[in-house]
Every structure is written in C-alpha cells, then in structure tokens.
C-alpha cells in the first residue's frame, strides 16, 4: 500500500507541477490586464511542438528547447502587440474573446505547420526508471519537479528584486497609481504576455517526453491550468502553484484510491466545492504583494 501511495504521489506531483506552470501563466497575464488569456494552453503546445520539430531535424535538445521558448515568447509578444494592445480600450470581456480567437488561430496554424500527427520529445536524461521505496519514477518527472521549483524561485526573485517585476506588481495592484508614478503600463502588459508564453512553453517541453504533444494538446492542459489557477486563487502566485499541485494530486489519488472512471469528476467536484465556500479560491484572488 505504501509503495502504491508513493507511485500515486509521484504521478500527481508531476502532472501537478505542469498544471502549476500553466496556472502561473494565467495569473501573470491576469495581474497585468485582468484578462483570462485562453490562448495560454497554445503556448504550452507551441513549446512542445517547436522543440520536438527542431530535435527531429537534428538540433541538440538543449538548443531546441531554448529556441522553442524563444519562439513561444515571441508569439506571445506578437499576440499582445497585434491583438490585445490594439484593443486596449475594449472591456475585459472583449479581450477574453480575442484570446479565445487567438487560441483557435494558433491551433489552426500549428495544424498546418506541424500536421495532425502526435509528436514526442526525447527526455532530458534517459528513460531508465528510478526505483524509490517500491515506486518507479522516470528521471523526467524529477526534471519536471526540479524545473518547477527553479522557476518559482526565479519568479520570486524577478517580482521582488527587479524593476520590471516590481513594476508589474505595482500595475497589478493599482494601474492608475502605477501610471502616475511613471510606470509604463503598456510595457508591463507586453512583458507579461512574453513571460506567460515562455512559462507555458517550458511546461509543454517538460511534459512532451512523458505525455507526447500534438497540435491540440493545449486545449486540455490549458483547461487544467485554468482550473488550477481558479482553485488556488487567480492572480495569486502561491495560489497557482498550490492549485496546480492540488489538482494533480486529486487526479492521481482519486484514480488510484477511488476509481479512475471518476478521476476528472473528483477534481472538478472539489473545484466547485471550493468555489462555493471561497469564490476567490483557496488562497484568495489577486494578492499582489510580494511573492
């Protein structure tokens, strides 16, 4: 029983970390603009697909991953510049609908560029499973966990110590006040899309060796990440990480100990329950103090 529980825990933490990274992307854009960016899942897809296609033409994995992140970030920045910024006077609902349209467009382009097939990415360090206390864990799972921890640390440094990071937090807290003290809120919004896209791409590249990638992987991962962000509290960085891990663990423990037929139902019932009791998510929405 102990080794089984450990196996469920490992699976839950791995997918939970991916959900957390996607949820962070949702929160960053939400903080800067109050918009739920429904194209966040497509950044996950672009990361996985771009890295996979670069590796398949013979590029070393590390270089392919770096370029894939850059491609996703560039797509995020272009999306902001061409669609979001031009509609900056529109209300939030309109902007949300623009992101939904953008997600369809990106998915369509991916289908043309990369085709409809399923792609894989080689794992960062081998496929030989590691036995820990009766459970077997893939090295890639450790990479997922480690990278997530590293990213959380880097983000906390970015938002706490750098000018741009602090400007982003200030804008999130009070846009008008931030503008009055001379913060370029347009730049903040621009940067937030790039950062969210890069985070999504990292998530996509980390999960591709385990769960594969295709032009439509962004749909479900985006939805799970969104659920995680809401669960923890949208706009709250701790909430995004907490929500992601909780969702991942609920799924794997639910499948393992209760029934795999109700795996997704369990996760979403908990989500609904939380929203009834705490509509702002477990840790509360939009706490823009330092991470």
């Amino acid at each position: 029983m102990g080794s089984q529980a450990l196996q469920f825990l490992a699976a839950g933490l791995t997918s939970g970390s991916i959900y957390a990274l996607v949820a962070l992307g949702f929160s960053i854009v939400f903080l800067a603009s109050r918009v739920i960016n429904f194209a966040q899942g497509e950044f996950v897809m672009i990361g996985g697909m771009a890295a996979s296609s670069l590796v398949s033409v013979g590029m070393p994995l590390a270089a392919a991953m770096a370029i894939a992140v850059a491609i996703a970030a560039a797509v995020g920045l272009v999306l902001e510049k061409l669609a979001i910024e031009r509609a900056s006077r529109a209300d939030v609902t309109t902007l949300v609908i623009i992101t939904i349209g953008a997600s369809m467009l990106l998915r369509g382009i991916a289908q043309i560029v990369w085709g409809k097939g399923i792609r894989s990415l080689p794992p960062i360090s081998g496929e030989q499973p590691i036995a820990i206390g009766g459970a077997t864990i893939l090295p890639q799972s450790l990479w997922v966990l480690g990278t997530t921890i590293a990213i959380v640390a880097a983000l906390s440094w970015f938002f706490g110590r750098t000018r741009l990071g602090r400007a982003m937090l200030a804008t999130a807290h009070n846009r008008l006040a931030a503008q009055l003290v001379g913060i370029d809120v347009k730049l903040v919004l621009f940067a937030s899309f790039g950062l969210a896209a890069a985070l999504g791409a990292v998530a996509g590249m980390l999960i591709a060796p385990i769960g594969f990638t295709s032009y439509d992987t962004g749909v479900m991962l985006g939805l799970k990440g969104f659920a995680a962000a809401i669960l923890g509290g949208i706009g709250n960085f701790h909430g995004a990480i907490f929500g992601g891990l909780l969702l991942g663990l609920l799924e794997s423990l639910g499948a393992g100990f209760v029934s795999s037929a109700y795996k997704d139902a369990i996760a979403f019932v908990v989500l609904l329950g939380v929203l009834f009791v705490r509509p702002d998510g477990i840790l509360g929405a939009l706490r823009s103090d330092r991470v």
Partner: protein
Amino acid sequence: MNFRLAAGKLVRAGAIAAAVALPVTSWSADEPLRVGAFLSVTGPAAFLGDPEQKTLEMLVERINATGGVAGRKLQLFVYDDAGDAEKARTFTKRLLEQDKVDFLVGGSTTGATMAAIPLAEQSGTPFISLAGAVGIVEPVRKWVFKTPHTDRMACERIFTDMRERKLTKLALISGTGGFDKSMRAECLKVVGKYGIEIVADESYGAADTDMTAQLTKIKATPGVQAVLNAGFGQGPAIVTRNYRQLGLTPALYQSHGVASKEFVRLSGDAAEGVRLPAPALLVAELLADNDPQKPVVVAYKRDYEARYKSEVSAFGGYAYDGLMLAVDALRRAGSADRARLRDALEGTRGYVGTSGVVNMSNTDHMGLDLSAFRILEVRGGNWVIIR
C-alpha cells in the same frame, strides 16, 4: 457534358451540376454508372474521409482508363459532410434526388451512416457504409452493407489469441473517447464466451499525460495474466510506456485503433512484445506469398502511396472495398438495376479485399470473419505476424 471527376471541384460545382443534371429516366448502355459518395473529408473525422476520397478518385480513374464496368464508365459524385450527420443526410438526399446515383458508398462515421440509412432504405438504393459500428448491419437491413470489420471482431480476435496462450485473467484499461468506449463495451459483451474473466477495469481521459495510477492498481490486482488497452491516439503509447516504467509483466494487448507505425515510434522500446489485431493491409509486405489477400493489398498500397506520397491507412482500404464490392456485384448482376445490384451484393462470395475475404449472405451484410484480423507482435521495433 463532361463532368470532371475531381471531387473538390464537384463539391463546388455541386449546385450547378445538380441544376443541369440531365432529366434522363432510362439509361442507354453508353451512360456512365453514377456512384454517390458522402465522406467526412474535413472536420474531426478527416483522418477517415480524406484517404477514402483519395482512394475512390484513384479507383474510378483507373477503372475508367481500363474500359469501365461492363463497357460503362463510372462517374463519381463526392460530397464532404465534415463529420456532421445532418449534412450527411442532406447530401444523401441530393445524391439520390438530383444526382440520381445508382448506388451509395460512404458514411465515414457511424453517425453519418445512420443518418443516411432511412433514405437509402426508402428509395431502395444499395448503400455500402464505410463505418465501424455493428449496429449498421445488425439487424440486417435490406439495402445496407458495410466493409469495415467491427470492434467486436477485434475483441474476439484478441480473446482467441489469449485462449491459445492460456491466459484467462484480463485487466481492461480504456480511454473515454468514442472508439475506446465502444470497443470496451463490445469486449465486455463477448468476453464470457471465451472463458476469460475481467479482474480489473480502469479508464483514463482522452488528453491524460500519465496512466501510472491506473496501472499501479492493475499491478496490485492479484492474478492478472493479460492487460488489454482499448484506445486510440496517444493514450495507448503512454499506457505502453508507463507499463514498462512500472515493470508490469503480464502480456499487453493493444487494439486495432493503434495498428500503425506511429504507435511503435511513440512507444519506443516499451512496445517490445505488445500484441494487437490488425487488418492485412498494414502488413502487406509481411504476408505469406500464398496469402490470397497479398496481391490485392500490395497493389493497393503501392498505387496509393505512389500517387499520394502518404502512408496507406485501413480507412482508405474500407473505401477500396466499398467500391470494388459494388463493381464486382455490378459485373455479376450484368445491369445497374438497383434490385439486381442489391441481390448481387448479398450474393458476394469469396471477394478478396483489403479488409479480408468477404462472404455475404441474407443474414450477414458485412461478410468478414475473424481471419480478417492478423495478430501482430512488436519485435525489434517492427511488426511480426504471429497468427
């Protein structure tokens, strides 16, 4: 007038073609035979309809180039229902009333087929469906036939293989997609006949990235001798990889839904020893030289791949069989009279197609038996035919 056979043009020209369709009521021997097809060429089921359309176009061209059927050329009318049953019904109506086709081939999906069945039955038009569900030919309908084997046959083929290996305790793991659910349900229906006991029944979501939780439960279930994964898409490859990660040792069976090179490529080394049922077309070159299907599938595969520069699929094969069954029946009937064509279709014996050897009867409008499926095993990264 000279109709172009290119279906894409026909779809666009559909309205015009329909408007100018000659008001002919009786055909002279020089008139072409009119073949009506409605396929899911675009949309979510495009992976079915696209190779089906290409196959029909290629065949019609080739048949016409070699003199047609009993001296009459074929004229193909293709419409794209985009996987929408309502559109399939509308296009079937148009094929019957405006294009006045002699018989129907099509219905890439079960939904599209079901929508067209009442129209074919009412008008008394032979209809050869390209969709999978058992319900299309069970109960037998007078005018409806189908070419693909059913999910139930795939289950039965796997169970016969298990019986020969003396494996009696089976764990099921299936996805939540339409194909996955249908196959699971069919397997549960027939499993009792083979003396096989289901000891675990797990499921996973269509976009899940990890199935170790479900497989860990199966691993902890006592006495499991084989695991069957009813699935489609990337799920089965993830199951296969997780299976090896957890060090499970029971025999692993996959379904015909992933009988492709893609599955082996995605699963990598983890696919070693995996068995699955597959139609002969996918292992054309591996068939024994005395296999009756070998010349048919090798030729079709060669022609298709040479012309379209893409890998042949079982779905295109269904369309091949659909049209060639009708051609075979037309030659025997000696006329395009619908009732005689229908009787000739029902009287099909020993037709060798891509899906198997077809023997129809008045109680069986599919005419395939379990020999249509070969059991394959992955060895050294390639398929090997076991039986």
